[in-house]
């Protein structure tokens, strides 16, 4: 077992060491740190404690990067072997379940930790800039590493349980969001219980309160907020570090336990239709039925957007969420401190989040699915142009977003704003600046999905910052977005300029997507 395990681990590390792009990526990361440091030095004459500002900047960038990229990276450790049907070969090579798990996940964990280690010496320079201590830097990096262990093993469990990388990544994301939200809930619950008279003197009350405290302290976000505060001087091994590593090890054990049943007993032909109903089922009225006049719109609405069934389910779920928030405000509003007037705001926030997530998922799949299923050559052979196919597919995906858009509209109506205010915001450059940045972001996801096997979404997220920083168009959009005219209509020229600039950028992206599709289709 050890021979196989070491062979697998060594292979992964050698591969990593040989690939130039990995080193370029690390170098880019260090370069980004250098730029941030330069920025902090330049601004040091105007702000106090530039070292702390620089340190904070990099720490939160790391959290963002590990969270976004890590989800796809770790949750594909085993699913990529399943998708390529090589998991059986690994087992035939004499590797047992533990060996495969260690070989596949540990190398990835090491690679991400290496990325953190490479920054460490540069981060120590922050001490010389002032405002931060070595203790803070060490504590922050230990926190980040513990968080990486947790994320890696959460992804590993999902990777073992699910057949497809996409599903594993989606569930890992949900679990990590729950992990981020749970401390907030725990804090609220602790406050509520303590106010109700719960004390640690009672045995079972103490156990519950202690558990809640551990959950409260387990969040890396909360811990890093503490670490980045001036005057931090606490031990490095906090409850967050211990709990994250502990849960990570538990998840690794769980992955080991589930490996046999999940991997060896998986049904062949892993592709499923998700929520798409077959025409032979009882609910055939929700099946895709016959193809529409534009088959590409039909296909992407049914098989990427989720089809009729998911359309209905999403609509009911979103409306249910609205009813739920309304119900909670009605019953517990006084305890939780919000009344019915805030229901609209909360629902708007939730729907905006849902719409953004759904759009990003659709953008990452709209062309990537064609590449994954090797169907691009067949599409190129049709007597249709690439733009026709591309725009039709985009429309199909947009149809799948209709429930979220409808409910977003409903949420806007619940906001305490007048129609005039809505209209005014529609001609404000700042509003369009945000909308257009989001459009560019979706284009970037779609383009990157044609270059990378997985992780287009986190990569786009990561690239969006530097890209906007380097792009003059982004500066122009930002400056126009900040313009405020006395009269609302005075903003219109700035708004139109933003439309034109963003239209140009999107057009360039679309040309790049078309060229890449052509290239991939002819391979």
């Amino acid at each position, binding site marked *: 077992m050890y021979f196989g395990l070491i062979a697998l681990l060594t292979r992964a590390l050698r591969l990593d060491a040989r690939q130039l792009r990995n080193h370029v990526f690390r170098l880019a990361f260090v370069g980004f740190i250098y730029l941030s440091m330069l920025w902090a030095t330049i601004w040091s004459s105007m702000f106090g404690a530039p070292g702390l500002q620089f340190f904070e900047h990099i720490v939160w960038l790391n959290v963002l990067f590990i969270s976004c990229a890590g989800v796809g990276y770790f949750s594909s450790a085993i699913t990529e072997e399943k998708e390529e049907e090589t998991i059986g070969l690994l087992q035939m090579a004499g590797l047992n379940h533990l060996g495969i798990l260690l070989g596949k996940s540990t190398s990835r964990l090491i690679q991400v930790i290496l990325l953190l280690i490479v920054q460490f010496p540069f981060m120590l320079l922050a001490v010389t800039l002032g405002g931060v201590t070595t203790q803070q830097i060490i504590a922050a990096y230990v926190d980040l590493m513990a968080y990486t262990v947790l994320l890696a093993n959460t992804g590993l469990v999902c990777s073992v349980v699910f057949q497809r990388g996409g599903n594993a990544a989606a569930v890992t994301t949900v679990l990590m969001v729950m992990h981020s939200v749970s401390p907030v809930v725990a804090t609220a619950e602790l406050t509520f219980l303590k106010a109700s008279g719960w004390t640690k003197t009672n045995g079972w009350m103490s156990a519950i309160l202690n558990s809640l405290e551990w959950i409260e302290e387990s969040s890396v976000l909360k811990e890093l907020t503490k670490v980045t505060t001036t005057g931090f001087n606490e031990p490095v091994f906090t409850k967050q570090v211990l709990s994250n590593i502990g849960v990570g090890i538990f998840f690794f054990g769980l992955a080991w336990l589930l490996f046999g049943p999940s991997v060896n007993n998986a049904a062949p032909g892993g592709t*499923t239709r998700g929520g798409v109903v077959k025409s032979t089922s009882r609910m055939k009225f929700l099946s895709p039925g016959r193809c529409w006049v534009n088959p590409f719109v*039909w296909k992407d609405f049914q098989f990427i957007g989720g089809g009729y069934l998911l359309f209905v389910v999403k609509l009911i779920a979103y409306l249910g969420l609205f009813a739920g928030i309304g119900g909670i405000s009605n019953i517990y509003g006084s305890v939780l401190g919000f009344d019915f007037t805030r229901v609209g705001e909360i629902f708007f926030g939730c729907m905006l989040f849902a719409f953004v997530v759904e759009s990003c998922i659709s953008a990452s799949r709209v062309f990537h699915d064609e590449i994954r299923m090797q169907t691009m*050559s*067949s599409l190129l052979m049709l*007597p249709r142009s690439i733009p026709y196919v591309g725009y039709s597919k985009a429309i199909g995906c947009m149809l799948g977003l209709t429930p979220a858009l409808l409910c977003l509209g409903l949420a806007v109506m619940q906001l305490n704003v007048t129609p005039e205010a809505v209209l005014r915001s529609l001609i404000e450059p700042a509003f369009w600046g945000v909308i257009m940045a989001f459009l560019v972001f979706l284009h970037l996801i779609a383009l990157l999905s044609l270059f990378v096997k997985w992780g287009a979404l986190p990569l786009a997220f990561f690239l969006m910052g530097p890209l906007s920083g380097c792009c003059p168009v982004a500066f122009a959009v930002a400056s126009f977005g900040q313009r405020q005219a006395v009269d609302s209509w005075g903003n219109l020229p700035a708004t139109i300029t933003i439309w034109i600039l963003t239209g140009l950028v999107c057009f360039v992206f679309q040309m790049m997507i078309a060229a890449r599709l052509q290239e991939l289709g002819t391979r």
Partner: protein
Amino acid sequence: MSSSTNGSSTRPVIEVDDVVHSFKGRRALDHVSFKVMPQSLHGFVGPNGAGKTTSLKIICTLLRPQFGIVKVFGHDVVDEQKMVRRKIGFMPDHFSTYRQMTVYEYLDFFAAAYGLPFAQRTRVIDEVLALTDMEGRKNDLISGLSRGMQQRTSLARVLVNDPDLLLLDEPASGLDPRARIELMEILKALRSMGKTIFISSHILPELAELCDAVTIIDKGKVMYSGTMSGLQTSTNVHPTWRVTLGSVVDGIVDRIKGLPGVVDADQVEGRPDYRVSYDWTMTDTNSLLRGLLDLGAPIIGFTEDKRHLNDAFMDLTTKGVK
């Protein structure tokens, strides 16, 4: 499915003239020229990396030739892409299917993508399902089909726009013998409907059985292009016939070898079957049969041994996997 009529029956369906194509400095096609005649089943053979898939991709408009001219039904593949695409069906060497769709949905999608009206789609899909014998599986998910069935689904997809020319890249690879034989039967049926089929394959005995013409390519160069019968004369491969006797006759092999023009004779695995090769410049099939009868051999069968495509392939292509 309608049978095709392509104007003049003597005008080639595919004309590849002096085509050159390179990838990253490596020449994949080196002044390649050949023609495919209408309503023929034309084999395209060569070792791995010989340039078969590149040629097919150029013919089907997916790749632009860097030099030379390619015409399909008289239309230039570069200047008249849409015209060419409407007349051809290309089946790549991978499945290229939407695995989450049912067979019917998949065919319906491609029929609609070709712009077929609703009523016509229904009729065409029923026809191609019948032709490929997939009627019973039309509501099955493609992901749940066997490899052979998936290949048939791909073939059905190629047929939905009723193309006059089918370009098939390794359609039989990875199929079990039954699926392979069934696929070949479908191809025979398509040829009888007047379709021209240009097929790249490594399964030479079946191609020899099926094809009217063949193009052999190696290292990007055409080594032979023409009819199957012309292959043996142009490549100096000796025609081989299989003689089946009523029983094993002692010493018959040596006596056969003594016949004029016979270059080789051997017995097949102890059975009363003998393979006889002759030099076509010294004798012919009739003279050989007459000679065998004169030997007094109890002949109950006399058939051409189609081994010559294998031999020609081995003679014309170089050793080793590229």
